[in-house]
């Protein structure tokens, strides 16, 4: 998928692709030309991405080629053992969780699961969790607490699933329970918003000692479309709502809601998974290192302070 404002970038990428193809022919010497185009591409990408509007950032945050939780796990973990089910109703495919090894750390990971294509997205419900997803996450966090393992939570969801069955099974209760339990969980929690931080659906697994955001991710109380349709009475005013809501990583850092913004490569995470994942890993490891050495008592007290200060 190509976003409007990326057109000049895509043009250069096409040219580079063509040259690379020709370069495979015998005697072809396109090396310097390709290098020059690559340099231009990086410059252009930096230039375009430095000037993105909030609404354009929303598009990047939702880009279908952005790395997903499975990509981060694949790139950062030497081991991942998936664990299923909430022990109560079922296994929510929209939430992924399990035991993982991150560098030197054994951790419990939880997060929203989006798909790479339509079939997968239908299967995973586009990363919109049901109550059993939040309850699965809580069960795994309890496991982490029992074994004194840090929790790493990956946020990437349009929101909690707004369906009649989700209501029947207590979507509100499931999220409320997680917020309450996570505030006193006796083990470190690191949260990283990788794409969309969609309201209650995001915070339902998003309470942490450290909250990180990828540079082009978003985090909002309501989707720009939802906000526009209520306050502008016109869903098409989403770009205005996106700007008014202050939902970009930079905004949230300024508002003291997140602790650090993880840089993305020029042209966004979808252009370079490897670099994105490596930057995320670096940041996660840095924070884990600090958190695992803190006393649990101090950690939990600091978590309370952190949240009680917001909006004071």
């Amino acid at each position, binding site marked *: 998928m190509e976003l409007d404002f990326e057109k000049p970038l895509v043009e250069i990428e096409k040219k580079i692709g063509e040259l690379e193809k020709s370069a495979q022919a015998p005697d072809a010497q396109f090396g310097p030309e390709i290098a020059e185009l690559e340099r231009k591409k990086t410059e252009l990408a930096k230039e375009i991405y430095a000037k993105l509007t909030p609404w354009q950032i929303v598009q990047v945050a939702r880009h279908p080629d952005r790395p997903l939780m499975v990509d981060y796990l694949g790139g950062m973990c030497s081991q991942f053992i998936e664990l299923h089910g909430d022990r109560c109703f079922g296994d929510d495919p929209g939430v992924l969780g399990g035991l993982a090894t991150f560098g030197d750390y054994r951790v419990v990971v939880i997060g929203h699961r989006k798909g790479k294509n339509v079939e997968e997205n239908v299967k995973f419900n586009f990363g919109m969790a049901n109550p059993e997803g939040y309850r699965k996450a809580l069960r795994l966090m309890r496991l982490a607490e029992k074994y004194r393992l840090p929790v790493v939570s990956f946020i990437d969801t349009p929101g909690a699933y707004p369906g009649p069955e989700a209501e029947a099974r207590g979507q509100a209760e499931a999220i*409320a329970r997680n*917020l*309450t339990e996570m505030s006193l969980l006796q083990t470190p929690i690191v949260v990283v918003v990788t794409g969309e931080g969609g309201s209650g659906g995001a915070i339902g697994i998003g309470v942490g000692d450290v909250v990180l955001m990828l540079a082009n991710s978003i985090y909002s*109380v309501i989707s720009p479309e939802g906000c526009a349709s209520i*306050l502008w*009475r016109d869903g098409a005013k989403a770009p205005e709502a996106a700007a*008014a*809501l202050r939902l970009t990583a930079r905004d949230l850092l300024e508002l003291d809601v997140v602790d650090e913004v993880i840089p993305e490569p020029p042209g966004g995470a979808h252009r370079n998974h490897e670099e994105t994942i490596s930057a995320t890993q670096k940041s996660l490891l840095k924070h884990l290192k600090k958190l695992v050495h803190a006393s649990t008592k101090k950690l939990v007290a600091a978590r309370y302070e952190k949240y009680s200060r917001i909006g004071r």
Partner: protein
Amino acid sequence: MGWFTKSKKPVEALPPPEEELWIVCSSCKAHIFKQEWDKNLQVCPKCNFHEKLTCYERIHITLDEKTFREFNAEISTSDPIQFSDAAEAYKDKAEATKTKVGLKESVVTGSGKIKDITVTVAVMDFRFLGGSLGSGAGEKILLAADYALRHSRPYIVFSASGGARMHEGIISLMQMPKTCAGIARLHRAGIPYISVLTHPTTGGVSASYAMVGDLNIAEPGALIGFAGRRVIEQTIKQELPNGFQTAEYLLEHGFVDQIVHRKDMKDFLASVLRYWQRR
């Protein structure tokens, strides 16, 4: 609410309007003699609809007379993201609401007695920006929880809210974990926490402190749910049945302990509180 239940009286050239004699139930549209309506605590005698109460009306019918002492009355709205929509700036909207409603936030908190048992209470008022959870409201609810914790007093929260206040953006979303952190400390300390869900309690309020009471008590017929009806209908492209997301529906699905009629609420709370006192 029916637009004529609390009709604005014409302003000019008329003699002072008489006291309204009739109330129209906003649910069944029955005409009820005002005296009867008030005596019945604003519950429709025909259809049992529990009309929304203002926070001070709620305090009046719940707490023993002259026992309420308000906390943090000075805490008001703030404008953390300098929000403006097509129509107006949030700051102006909030100021206009304060003048109109006579409150500084969507919740009033304090201490008082229920049949001689001292409790800490938070009472939300739907008239104030739909009872939305803004940063001032979240702060008051947390501070009251903190007071209850320090003084070992039971905490009772009466909710009436459309959810998080989107005009305060991410800061309002963060009032959900913030208030829940306060409730979690009460749970850990063994301090009773009762959530009373009144019409309506939805969105970010239902998905935070309102749903994690030791007891979740609802008023009859109250709308309680996470997602809005219209959003769900758009998602599944079907109409939802009547009775969906009502207090009765939640009782049936295991999310509230009891549905208590408004006239019985004070007695109910007192008996639960007395039960706990015997520890």
